[in-house]
């Protein structure tokens, strides 16, 4: 997910499939503008106001806007350099209660330090289905984290997680708060589980690849070849090991 500057200094636009109107046009719902992008140069070449057809109905926009405001607060607090946006990806023409619609929350944080040989990105996409008949909101999140360190070596982290949750269909402001709490809760939990995965590495997961030391807890006795032939013969005799 990339974030490009809109000419005119109005802000940035997120390049994501949730906001894609056509191959080169991406919507920024917060400012109701459409950015035209040159993918090869990775630059926003021009910007125009969005047409009414490209924007959600006032009814949906109330929810989208309230959620956007809450998410901005959350992202500001949780991500030092995070960008976010809320898109309507389904039912954008719904005029009032009685029909379902769907919003997508997109959060992106990236760090590029090629001079330090390190890059990283965090992307989360949260789909919120507003189910009118059940008066429930179904929340589905997809989180993707990547990090790359390549100073005299080349190592990459690739992690992803999917989660689900739900809450009640309330007013735009209350729904926004509930959704934001769900997102905050799951993302915080995910970060914790990532840290746990890392702390398991040295003595647990890595061990399945290579132990730090043999079971004997001593270095391998290279000078003692006699010991080996004995060990091997005994091992064969007793049929030990794979």
């Amino acid at each position, binding site marked *: 997910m990339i974030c490009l500057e809109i000419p005119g200094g109005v802000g940035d636009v997120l390049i994501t499939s949730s906001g894609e109107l056509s191959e080169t046009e991406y919507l920024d719902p917060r400012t109701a503008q459409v950015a035209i992008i040159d993918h090869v140069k990775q630059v926003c070449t021009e910007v125009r106001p969005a047409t009414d057809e490209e924007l959600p109905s006032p009814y949906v926009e109330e929810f989208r806007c309230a959620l956007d405001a809450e998410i901005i607060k959350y992202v500001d*607090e*949780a*991500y*030092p*350099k*995070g960008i976010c946006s809320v898109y309507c990806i389904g039912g954008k023409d719904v005029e009032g209660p009685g029909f379902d619609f769907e919003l997508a929350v997109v959060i992106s*944080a*990236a*760090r590029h330090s090629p001079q330090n040989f*390190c*890059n*990283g990105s*965090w992307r989360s996409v949260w789909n919120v289905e507003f189910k009118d008949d059940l008066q429930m909101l179904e929340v589905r999140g997809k*989180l993707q*984290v990547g*990090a*790359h*360190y*390549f100073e005299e*070596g*080349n*190592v*990459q*982290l*690739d*992690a*992803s997680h*999917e989660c689900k949750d739900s809450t009640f269909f309330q007013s735009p402001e209350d729904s926004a708060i509930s959704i934001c709490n769900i997102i905050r809760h799951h*993302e915080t939990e*995910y*970060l*914790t589980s*990532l*840290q*746990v*995965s*890392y702390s*398991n*590495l*040295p003595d*647990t*997961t*890595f*061990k*399945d*690849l*290579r*132990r*730090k030391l043999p*079971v004997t807890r001593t*270095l*391998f006795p*290279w*000078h003692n*070849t006699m010991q*080996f032939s004995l*060990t*091997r013969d005994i091992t064969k005799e007793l049929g030990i*090991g*794979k």
Partner: protein
Amino acid sequence: MEAAMGLMRRIHPKHAETALSALLSLLPEHSTDLLSQVDQPLQVLCDIDSGKEFILCEYNRDADSYRSPWSNKYHPPLEDGPYPSPELRKLEIEANDVFAIYRDQYYEGGISSVYMWEDENGGFVACFLIKKDGSKSGHGRRGYLQEGAWDAIHVIEVEPEEEGTARYCLTSTIMLSLTTDDKSSGRFSLSGSIRRQMNMDFSVADGHLCNMGRMIEEMESKLRNSLDQVYFGKTKEMVCTLRPPSEVIQMRLPDS
């Protein structure tokens, strides 16, 4: 070549094979250099005589055939491929046997192979290889890994002995990948490669195998720690930079 190598260093380790094929078709005149300098996961063949597997690399290859360290025969058979001298072959056999035990002690499974050949300066070169599948369907003893691979290539150049001492130049390459997958934390995958060099002088009193073995053991341990602490550690640091843990955030907020 510099641009190609720079590219290979930055490409996601999982895409290394595809990237190399692409480079080979873009730069056919550099294919020998690319093949010898770019690390690729190790392939394996089964020796029909002994029923044991052996690892394939440039150092036991001639044309399209590979020499097995167990039977000393080329697969598929070759009319006249290169072989180590009878004396060196003796050392090679011993090295394979001892290295297999070393491998078992540290890797609890996996495959290893050692190949040796004389070089032009009167010394010789030895290549020690290990391939381990650490996934729970492979040789992963504890079942933590959905997918796990460790490929190690150690090439030691041994200079001719002078006054009871020999110089050993080791170049080690480790390629690894590991993936855990579970409902509560999703998919967590780390992969990468690292290459280091080490030169040491040893008295030949303990024998070449002992000297080479010690160097390899020391190097492997260093690389394992480095990968774990430094390299994987840096990726963890990056994640915590992107989204600091909540304790850090709470400390920043004044009174909420």
